[in-house]
């Protein structure tokens, strides 16, 4: 039985225990610690290659495919010469690892011919976008790791079965 199969309507309508969001694939997080498909963009945070305490905020809008890359203080990335910089390339490559090509391409609304690179199929240009919001979502993301574990039972978690055994 597969919840996400095309004939799954009855299953979806009447089941309480479902994994609505497919689990993401593990990947190395050092270079691109944060990737998400949210607010109509593929967006994330890319570590600077030269300065360990600096990060870049990179994003690509769904539909228009306009892109932006800047430091978290809104200083524009020096690598944006009319085409996506290496941070944007790293962002899309890691997004494909994390979510799979289909999910990223569908979200961005882009056709990727078989064997082609996703970033080569994007047609947008540079368009400034606020980095602060993405960066604060990243900080919020990191803050989860500071929340202490608890041994008080959370019965509501029965609605969220784990899945993914595919070894």
């Amino acid at each position, binding site marked *: *039985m597969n919840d996400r199969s095309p004939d799954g*309507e009855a299953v979806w309508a009447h089941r309480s225990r479902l994994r609505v*969001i497919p689990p993401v694939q593990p990947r190395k997080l050092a270079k691109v610690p944060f990737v998400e498909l949210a607010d109509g963009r593929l967006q994330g945070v890319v570590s600077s290659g030269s300065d360990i305490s600096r990060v870049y905020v990179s994003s690509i809008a769904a539909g228009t495919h306009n892109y932006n890359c800047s430091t978290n203080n809104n200083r524009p990335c020096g690598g944006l010469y009319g085409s996506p910089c290496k941070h944007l390339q790293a962002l899309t490559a890691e997004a494909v690892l994390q979510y799979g090509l289909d999910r990223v391409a569908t979200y961005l609304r882009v056709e990727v011919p078989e064997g082609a690179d996703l970033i080569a199929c994007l047609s947008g240009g540079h368009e400034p976008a606020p980095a602060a919001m993405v960066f604060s979502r990243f900080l919020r993301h990191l803050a989860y790791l500071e929340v202490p574990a608890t041994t008080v039972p959370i019965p509501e978690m029965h609605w969220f079965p784990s899945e993914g055994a595919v070894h």
Partner: protein
Amino acid sequence: MLAVQLAGLLDGDPEGTGEALALVDGFDDALVHGLARLSEERAEAPAALAGAFSATPIGDRLAEAAAKVASGSITEEHLTALAGGRAALFGAVHDALLADLDAALGRERAPWYPAPRSEQDTAANLLGGARSWLRELAITGWRGVDHDLVSAVDQITEGLTVVPGLRRLAVLLDGFAAELRASCPVGTMEHLPVRRWADLWTRALLLAQDGVLPGEPRPVATVSGRLLILGVDVHEHGTAVQFQVHAVLEPADGGQARLVRTSVTAAKVDTIVGPALWKLAHDHKVLLAALAGHLSLEVTDLPLLDGGDVIWHDDRASLGKPADPFTTARLHLAGVLAPAVPPLERVPVRIAEPVLIEGYEVTGDGSFDLGGSVLAVDTARLPGCGPLTPKLVAGSSACVGLVRWDGGCWLLQPLAVQAKVKRETVAVGTGDWAQGPTDPKVVKAEARSGDAVAVLRERAGRLLRQ
């Protein structure tokens, strides 16, 4: 579980289940399109739900709430009444199903005694914020949900997460909002998880009432004795994982053995998946060692809650002798005392009753055929943090699992199986990798993707305290 017991269980739904679920479905369908847009056919649904309670003390309140909602006056109070009605109907379905299951298994269940009241956390503004977001959702309907509506709950969950007594609501809202966000714009989604989202909405609205969640857990007793692990059920969404251990407690004072659950829940992010999840529970070394090593535990003075949950304290436990879950199940499950289910937890999704099943044939779709009665096996949801795979389950000769009920059917969720690996019969369970994976292939894959927990903790250390 014997063939005759399974046959008894599968012999028809409890009386009235179909009618109760039809009323729930009608109400759930109204939430798809939003209570602000109740067209003729759906306007009846809240009234029909309320009608089921006409002979009860809450009948008048529900009838009034249904009438007001149909006329477009949708207040928090009316929504709470309707959510209460839906929860009560589903609660009755739960009770009937569990009674059927207990009867089939011949399992004795303890009566429920309320726990003493404790101090409430006063976080009235956060709870009020959650209720008003849930009201907006109900008015808009799932089909109308957009990014702005989903994002409006972010600040509320952030606040709830840091109040220990409100963690349950925080974890629920976080998982729910993430699904809505990933499904945006919901209007274009092909299939909707109609019952699921109504379940989550209902439970969230009930937990968000002032005074429902206790500030501290309220034990009904403390227990000591030998804990024999049956297996671990893993629950997970993007920002939380719960390891829920099912075990038999042999009380130190020699009383009847009882079924208990004990849990560890950790916050996480979506990129921490698979065997790395266990690292989030690393403070509970004794528990993890018992899971990985198939060992029994000696526990002293652990608080017991009204629903059979034991609050884990790693420093009040020590490792005991080897204990195989199949031996435990064979020795104890027939005469074990099952815990009561607290009123607010009475919902079919919570039914997770440990059983041992053996002597089955595995059918083409992976179900277990036990003497002609066929029980579906939920192999799509084996946790990625353990070694149990659909293939191992399909090749197994005995299984310790949880009987669940979902979407109108009974299901078996495997926790451990006995299977032949390289001509040797071995027991493989979901908790075997609690101290790290033991399969060299998985160890290698883990090494390739690096230590996600450590990388993110390093980033958090550097960026959060600037």
